[in-house]
């Protein structure tokens, strides 16, 4: 396994590679090289061909695709010139891949340890050595209890642990080349940070030539030494990472980087709006939610939301932030009348009746129903695939406004213009529109009822960055034009920073912190908020790398004494006093319903410290 490693030891050489699928060229004359000990990123939006390129390193082409020019050499061997046995040997020893979604990529019926051992056996190890190396590798990827975790099946592991197993599977055989295919997509930010830190450390330690595929500039910044930007199968720019992020040479790269939302430093694009937003006198209250608890069963532990209170005012964007499972979407659905709360009250204040939102949509008066409208995450499934998209807009116009005939057609066209969509596009089926266009139709559908409150549930999550930016712009314009209040649900703090006036941070079904966006981003925070902000990767190699460093985040007690956290229950004594520090890790724990007021509506939920070995 020992080999001499020189920096110019080029292990991957892709030369003039073109791939066609049917008659369409999906990869067009791409070339790059990766030396040992270095990481190259292939960046691009969906359809850019980045995954296709990466998989050619393993000699894999999707069924129906074929190589039309060029050559791929890995460890000095021409990948597409190998016979079956040769290719198998290459895959089992020289090049390994960490797939996008470990949850789907691990065989569900096999214990994870067996899967790693199997990979080692295929690489030529004997049984005893394979068993030993498996445990060793599990320890290396920081899986808990490496001796026994191999006995588990994939479904018994958390998403982050599954991804670690997938990494173990790849590195166990000590490959010279590692392919990372969107290795953290689908993971929560805090888990993502840990996985990226691990990958960074492993690639450096093992000295692999690493090729990573990503759409996320933050992830690229954290891992890559060198980056190649792909667009529609062509490499538009290739540069060292630092240079690419600081002075992008190509117009397209600049555009993409400009569209990436950031938390720190850079001001959002509508700088004027931002300052005005802070000062503007708040409008009347539209929505009041008090002590709402929502559950999917009858037991206490089935509660998804365990006591949320907030207000929403006219013309304001409130962001509801949290990881998956924090209860934020449940709360949104409840407001839309899709899932009744167990107790607490939710009210639409300007309503003529009692404006009770605890009742199901079907029971709400028509007038109330149209006032609160939902926009969905997934533009692919939010429109009926068998009906022209105009139907999606017409239906609420008929139902809520009673429009018919020419009036209907006129309003329909008007709505299309409102969301900056060519009215002709409404005559198409959803499949014939792009993701961004479909999301615009979804917004038009919500606007059709002339709502006062728009609940936007992760509406930009499934979109490419450039499309995401345009949808955010649209939302910004709409709230001015229609005087809309918006509850914007997102897990992406960068996006939130850009659009929100106020922030509600949810964790485990409770709001742990709320306040004006700027205050929350800048001021003393709840430890969870702090963790979220720190784990969010900026498109800047220095910041992103610092963020994924293992020691990043630091000790919670250190932050506390530095005055960077608030909300520690005042009567709680520091259990750490007198305890030996050593291997003890300090964590926070929720400490009940009281909130600590910091002024200007900025409140932090109480917490306390606990120690963990």
């Amino acid at each position: 396994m020992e080999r001499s490693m020189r920096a110019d030891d080029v292990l991957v050489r892709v030369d003039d590679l073109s791939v066609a699928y049917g008659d369409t060229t999906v990869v067009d004359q791409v070339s790059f090289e990766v030396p040992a000990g270095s990481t190259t990123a292939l960046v691009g939006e969906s359809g850019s061909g980045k995954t296709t390129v990466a998989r050619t390193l393993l000699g894999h082409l999707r069924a129906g695709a074929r190589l039309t020019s060029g050559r791929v050499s890995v460890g000095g061997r021409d990948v597409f010139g190998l016979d079956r046995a040769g290719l198998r040997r290459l895959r089992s020893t020289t090049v390994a891949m960490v797939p996008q979604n470990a949850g789907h990529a691990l065989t569900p019926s096999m214990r994870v340890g067996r899967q790693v051992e199997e990979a080692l056996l295929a690489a030529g190890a004997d049984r005893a050595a394979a068993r030993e190396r498996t445990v060793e590798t599990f320890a290396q990827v920081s899986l808990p209890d490496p001796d026994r975790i191999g006995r588990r099946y994939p479904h018994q592991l958390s998403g982050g642990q599954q991804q670690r197993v997938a990494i173990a599977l790849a590195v166990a055989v000590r490959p010279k080349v590692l392919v990372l295919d969107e290795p953290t997509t689908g993971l929560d930010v805090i888990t993502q940070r840990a996985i990226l830190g691990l990958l960074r450390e492993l690639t450096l330690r093992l000295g692999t030539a690493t090729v990573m595929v990503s759409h996320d500039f933050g992830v690229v910044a954290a891992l890559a030494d060198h980056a190649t930007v792909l667009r529609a199968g062509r490499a538009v720019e290739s540069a060292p990472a630092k240079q690419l992020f600081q002075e992008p040479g190509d117009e397209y790269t600049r555009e993409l980087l400009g569209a990436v939302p950031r938390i720190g430093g850079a001001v959002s694009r509508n700088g004027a709006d931002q300052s005005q937003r802070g000062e503007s006198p708040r409008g009347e209250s539209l929505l009041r939610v008090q002590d709402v608890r929502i559950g999917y069963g009858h037991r206490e532990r089935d509660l998804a939301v365990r006591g949320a209170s907030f207000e929403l005012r006219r013309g304001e964007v409130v962001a509801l932030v949290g990881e998956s499972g924090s209860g934020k979407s449940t709360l949104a659905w409840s407001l839309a009348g899709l899932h009744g709360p167990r107790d607490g009250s939710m009210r639409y204040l300007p309503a003529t009746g009692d404006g009770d939102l605890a009742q199901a949509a079907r029971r709400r008066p028509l007038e109330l129903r149209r006032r609160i409208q939902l926009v969905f995450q997934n533009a692919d499934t939010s429109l009926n695939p068998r009906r022209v998209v105009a139907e999606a807009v017409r239906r609420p116009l008929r139902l809520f406004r009673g429009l018919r005939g020419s009036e209907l057609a006129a309003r329909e066209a008007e709505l299309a213009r409102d969301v900056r969509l060519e009215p002709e596009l409404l005559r198409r089926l959803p499949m014939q529109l792009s993701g961004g266009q479909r999301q615009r139709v979804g917004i038009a559908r919500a606007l059709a009822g002339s709502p006062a409150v728009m609940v936007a549930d992760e509406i930009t999550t499934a979109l490419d960055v450039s499309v995401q930016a345009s949808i955010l712009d649209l939302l910004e314009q709409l709230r001015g034009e229609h005087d809309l209040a918006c509850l914007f649900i997102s897990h992406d703090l960068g996006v939130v920073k850009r659009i929100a006036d106020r922030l509600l941070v949810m964790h485990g079904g409770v709001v742990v912190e709320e306040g004006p966006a700027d205050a929350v981003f800048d001021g003393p925070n709840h430890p969870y908020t702090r963790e979220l902000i720190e784990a969010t990767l900026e498109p800047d190699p220095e910041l992103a790398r610092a963020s994924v460093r293992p020691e990043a985040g630091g000790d919670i007690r250190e932050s506390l004494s530095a005055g960077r956290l608030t909300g520690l229950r005042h009567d709680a004594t520091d259990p750490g006093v007198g305890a030996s520090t050593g291997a003890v890790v300090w964590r926070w724990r929720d400490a009940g319903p009281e909130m600590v007021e910091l002024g200007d509506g900025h409140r932090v939920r109480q917490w306390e410290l606990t120690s963990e070995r």
Partner: protein
Amino acid sequence: MTGSELTVAGTPAQGTLRTVWAGIRSSRAATIGLAIVALHVLVAIAAPLLTSYAPTQSVPAEALAGVSWDHLAGTDQYGRDVLTRVLHGGRFALVVCALSTVAAVGLGTVVGCFVALRGGWADNVVMRLVDSVLAVPAILALLVVVTALGTGTWVVVAAITIVYVPGVVRVVRAAAQSVVPLEYVTAARARGERRWSILRRELLPNVADVVAVELAMRASWAALLVSSLSFLGFGANPPTPDWGLMVAENRTALTVVPMATLAPIVALATFVVGLNLAADGLAKAWGIDRFRRDGR
């Protein structure tokens, strides 16, 4: 991305009927299958015009005659022309099969969509009932009904309908359940649409493909079931010409006139193969997994 999105295979057609039509046209197997079925229907309708014999006209003197120019498929033990009887033999099966299939699939689709949308206790109760009806094999259930109510055509139609509804409910419910959580259905619920309206506007067009495949598949099973029933002596009554009954009558003379048994077999088999090809073709055109699901 826009480009590749447009070229994704099988852009869905608009509406329920157009979906089905587009599916039929896009699959060669489905076209061939339906052509075979159509041919059988035409023959059944035009049977009296295609032959000079009457199906029940017995000529004892010519009993059990082999294949000849006068009798292309020979004659049976009563001297009836086998070919004539085969041409007429689809009538009973076709009528029963068509009526019961349409009734069962129609009813089952509505119930299946409804319980998928409604969920809760209604879903539980219906599925328990469905399971208990499925617990008795179709042919046994039919025999029980026939014992109780006799062997009239309408009894058989009603019985097959009842026996097949649960299977359809199960399949359509499963298909509808994958549509119900989709966001366009959620949007309709958030608008406060009535359940019936959601069922008709959002669910039905999106399970139309499954229902069409189900229709073809059920029809093929119904044809097998009816002919089995006739074979056992509880379907078509003698001297009615019917494929199943003919096999039962003529197989005692299998060694003497094999054609008298084989001819109705071939007729029945081609009819069912036609239906199966149609079901297969449609399923493939729409990417429905025809066999990975339960409920028969």
